[in-house]
């Protein structure tokens, strides 16, 4: 069986979408999403009814935005996250996101072709928060191979 990597990360924003402090983030979002869509190994990302991004979805609370993606493998996601134009967004995250005070990102393996749901992603995040990195829910720092 072929496995793909699912990844959830969430962030509590410093203000709503029309807050001037968020302009840098939202102004760059389409460019970064397009970069992801074209990145080698990218499979899928969650979008809301606009079809552009997922920023109107708030399954984890009113000021917490969600990013749920699928990749062919961990290395593709790692390269995009740390070795593309996305790195500069990551570097500046504290301009737009307040410390969550808890684990905010989780990775897990899914059968290729499966589309993860927000509910499923939330359960994986809970697993990671409860048990630490494990084959069912792991961090970048302590990854596990696909089964």
């Amino acid at each position, binding site marked *: 069986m072929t496995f793909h990597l699912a990844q959830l990360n969430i962030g509590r924003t410093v203000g709503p979408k029309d807050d001037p402090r968020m302009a840098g983030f939202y102004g760059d979002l389409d460019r970064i999403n397009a970069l992801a869509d074209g990145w080698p190994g990218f499979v899928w990302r969650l979008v809301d009814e606009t079809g552009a991004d997922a920023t109107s979805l708030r399954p984890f609370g009113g000021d917490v935005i969600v990013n749920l993606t699928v990749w062919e493998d961990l290395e593709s996601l790692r*390269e995009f*996250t*740390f*070795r*593309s*134009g996305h*790195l*500069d967004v*990551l*570097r*500046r*995250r*504290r301009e737009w996101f*307040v*410390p969550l*005070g808890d684990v905010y990102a989780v990775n897990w393996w899914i059968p290729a072709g499966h589309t993860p749901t927000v509910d499923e992603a939330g359960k994986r995040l809970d697993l990671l928060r409860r048990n630490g990195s494990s084959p069912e829910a792991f961090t*970048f*720092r302590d990854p596990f191979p696909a089964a």
Partner: protein
Amino acid sequence: MDAAAIAALAEPQRRAVYEHVAAAGAPVSRNAVADALEIGRTLAAHHLDRLAEAGLLEVSFARVNGRSGPGSGRPSKLYRRTAAEHGLSLPPRDYRTLATVFADAIEEAGVEPALFEAARRQGERHRKDDLPPEELLRRLGYEPYEDGDVWRLRNCPFDGVARTHAALVCGANLALLEGALDGVRIDPRPVGCCVTVRRSVPGTINNEDRF
């Protein structure tokens, strides 16, 4: 283990061979090393194999002339620097563990702006030395090389911590270099440091420098 690896560099000519391979950026052949250092091919091979035995270089085989199939000859033995880190500290020191702990705490507290500001101040101290950018970058361990109108940096001096805390370390690194030099930009590539530094090309006047 590390002491033995480092001891392999004690011989000055062997060290020159190592530095040539490290600076090449791509695997190099025995002949290329012999030509560059103006030494015999057998001597170059001896040094390269000693460095490989010590774990400082790694070996691959490829046909350097691009030919393949019958009549294209044996593949050449090629050498490049290993990704493994070698260090020796007497008495033992472990700043990396401490840096990792600091990075965890900074991330949890969300005080990245304070980190970047401290890094910028650290960089500004280097401005007083008034060194040419290439020399400063070399001294700081970045291994700069020319790429059009910028210096690119082959080595990340903070790689070990950057792997676990990229946002923090790359951000601090950028701020440090912005503090030290002009024309610093972030431009991530698959390998090496994510920063580029503008080169001042002789005979041209750079508007950013004038105003």
